[in-house]
């Protein structure tokens, strides 16, 4: 924690020191750089890039698997998912993914992997250990967001041009409900208790809250930022703290992350970050939130306790996805 404090103004440092609980261990944070064929590895303690992994073309979706031993990266233009060792950063193997994999999610049991194939109107289901495609599920045009319920019962996929959230039953691997949301849905994220799934609509400028039990949109909220053109407010990434008390929504070219109360759906704060912020991820202790700022080639690190930006860290070109490794 000490190195991180270096970056705070001396006055703020006092306050944070007083508030901060016992120092956490440092985590590795992986950031995919869409236009650079790399993944930047950040140390959450020193807030510096400690390593750069060379990947395939157009790395986008990024996540952990195999008890956090593997880092999975969607190499979209190479039509595969690449597997790297999270300790050594060495390449392990490729997984078949179907064409143009963009985002994916893993079953809570650790297998299989559900991949959105943006160019092919399907979700591909892959066994990550066998490296085998199990099934292709037809969905709408330009599948993108992938969320899975905490109990593993439903995968929710968004289709950007069809403007729907597709509920896929993981028992049968078939779509059971197709829910219309606003234009260009990007990310689907379940609340930690699994009762709701939030779907961001980039062009629509809204987040639809879908009730998991009824599979209906129960409410929808939007954003308003003084001095920012409404057209520039484009929600993409959505994440909840593990206790379900805070939600963060990345707002694209509005260059801000919204802090939302998941109980009231009210925006409590807009946090200024870098340019065209798309995806966000917490450290495993929920103390830091990392945001990928595509146009400014950096990530902003937000201190979750104070909801203030600690630092901007330069990464590769057009950072896209982000995930943190528990140590």
């Amino acid at each position, binding site marked *: 924690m000490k190195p991180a404090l270096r970056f705070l103004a001396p006055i703020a440092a006092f306050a944070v020191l007083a508030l901060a609980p016992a120092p956490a261990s440092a985590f590795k944070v992986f950031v995919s750089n869409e236009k650079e064929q790399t993944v930047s590895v950040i140390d959450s303690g020193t807030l510096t890039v400690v390593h750069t992994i060379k990947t395939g073309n157009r790395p986008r979706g990024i996540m952990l698997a195999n008890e956090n031993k593997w880092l999975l990266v969607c190499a979209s233009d190479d039509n595969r998912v690449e597997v790297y060792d999270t300790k050594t950063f060495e390449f392990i193997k490729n997984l078949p993914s179907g064409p*143009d994999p963009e985002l994916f999610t893993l079953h809570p049991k650790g297998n299989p992997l559900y991949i959105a194939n*943006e*160019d*092919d*109107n*399907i979700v591909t289901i892959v066994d990550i250990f066998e490296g085998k495609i199990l099934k*292709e599920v*037809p969905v*709408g*045009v*330009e599948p993108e967001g992938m969320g899975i319920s905490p109990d593993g019962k439903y995968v929710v996929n968004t289709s*950007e*041009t*069809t*403007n*729907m959230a*597709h509920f896929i*039953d993981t028992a*049968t691997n*078939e*779509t*059971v*409900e*197709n829910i*219309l949301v*606003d*234009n*260009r849905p990007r990310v689907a994220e379940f609340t930690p208790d699994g009762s709701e799934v939030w779907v961001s609509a980039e*062009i*629509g*400028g809204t987040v639809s809250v879908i009730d998991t039990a009824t599979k209906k949109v129960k409410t929808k909220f939007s954003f308003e930022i003084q001095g920012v*053109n409404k*057209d*520039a407010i*484009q929600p993409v990434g959505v994440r909840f703290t593990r206790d379900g008390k805070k939600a963060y929504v990345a707002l694209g*070219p509005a260059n801000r992350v919204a802090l939302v109360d998941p109980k009231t759906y009210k925006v409590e704060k807009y946090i200024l970050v870098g340019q065209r912020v798309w995806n966000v991820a917490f450290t495993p202790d929920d103390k830091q939130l990392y945001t990928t700022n595509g146009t400014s080639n950096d990530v902003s690190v937000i201190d979750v306790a104070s909801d203030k930006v600690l630092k901007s860290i330069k990464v590769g070109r057009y950072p896209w996805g982000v995930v943190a490794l528990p140590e």
Partner: protein
Amino acid sequence: MTNANVHRFDSSRTRLGLIACAVMMAAVAVAAMPVLAQDVKPAAPEAAAPSGAQKPAVMKINVLLARELRDIAPPLSLLDIAPPDDGIGGAKLAIADNNTTGKFVGQEFILDVIQNEKPEALVADVVKKVDAGAAFVVVDASPKTILALSDALKGKTALLLNAGSPDERLREEDCRTNVKHTIPSRAMFADALVQYLTWKRWSRWFLMVGPAEEDKLLADAYRRAAKRFGAKIINEKTYTYEPGSRRSDGGFEQIQQQMPSFTQDVDKDHDVVVVVDEGGLFGEYVPYRTWHAKPVVGTAGLYPATWHPAVELWGGTQFQNRFRRMNNRNFRELDYNVWMAIRSIGEAATRKKTNDGRQLIDYLDNPDFELAAFKGQKLTYRKWNGQLRQPILLVTGKLHVTVSPQQGFLHQLTELDTLGIDKPETKCKAFGN
């Protein structure tokens, strides 16, 4: 608005050639996907029917694409020859996109294409189809024919969506409530380019205008933009040119002499040459041949466009891929303008959950209507003249350079309305302005 976007049909060639071509394309289409030019079925994956969901009775929505085949001279560049299915490729993609959504909500879109070189026959055919239940007519025709269609459809439940004519008067003095426009007007194109010239501080122009009637109209749009954004036209010349047999072997020797001499006798203090040549007669000959070393913009060099086959902005990659897989060629501006028109109908049908023509037409003006069209923001129709407001790309032959509106050009409602003639200055009366 380069020569590439003036969709030409070379009727000097034999009809047989066209038919052969069309048959070939159809064959390719059959092989590639379950889509035919005249009857488009859902084109999403074959196994696409969503299992688990109940299947309600399918609502059918008929969309007509009407093209007036015009006699336009062939382009200077082989790359700019319009394919016989120009616009139709975009229609097929839009129908397929609509139908992928449609299969989840019980809607099916059916495309019907009418092409004719005789305006009267085209109008009669369209009226017949509208009377048979097609409420949406996407049209690629001359301004005169569009107005004739509008008159013929007056009082019927039908909407014309103009995808091919940038003519200002269709949005101004001759605006009609039963016509919407997905292609921008000349003033919108000109403003898009001139905003960028302003940002570059290329404010002293040499305006080089072609002889065609359309060129005069486009030159007017550039003069208006110059005034609006504080540029100065310090030279202006009209270029008259006898096209002759343009694609013969040779010709560069003479052009290499002609262009420098034509551009020599002007105030050399201009920043940029603004070429106005909608017909594509000479514009492509200007870059690299001017007497003074100046960049060329307008209809050659850097030009405004609604779409470009190389643009991958805002998720455009998959959009380009889908088009190429389906049509085996580049994705052109007319295709995109038609796609926007048919997707507008699709968006209305998805949201309103109906195939009732009147309700769908009305929904395009609903404040909730928004079209996502790979431009990074939602597109809507101007209620006071039916024009789709949209960002406009500034491109070269290979790639985009930027997208307008440029940063810093502000508007009290939407920055998209910094492009073109705005509500307070419109001459359009039909919408009760």
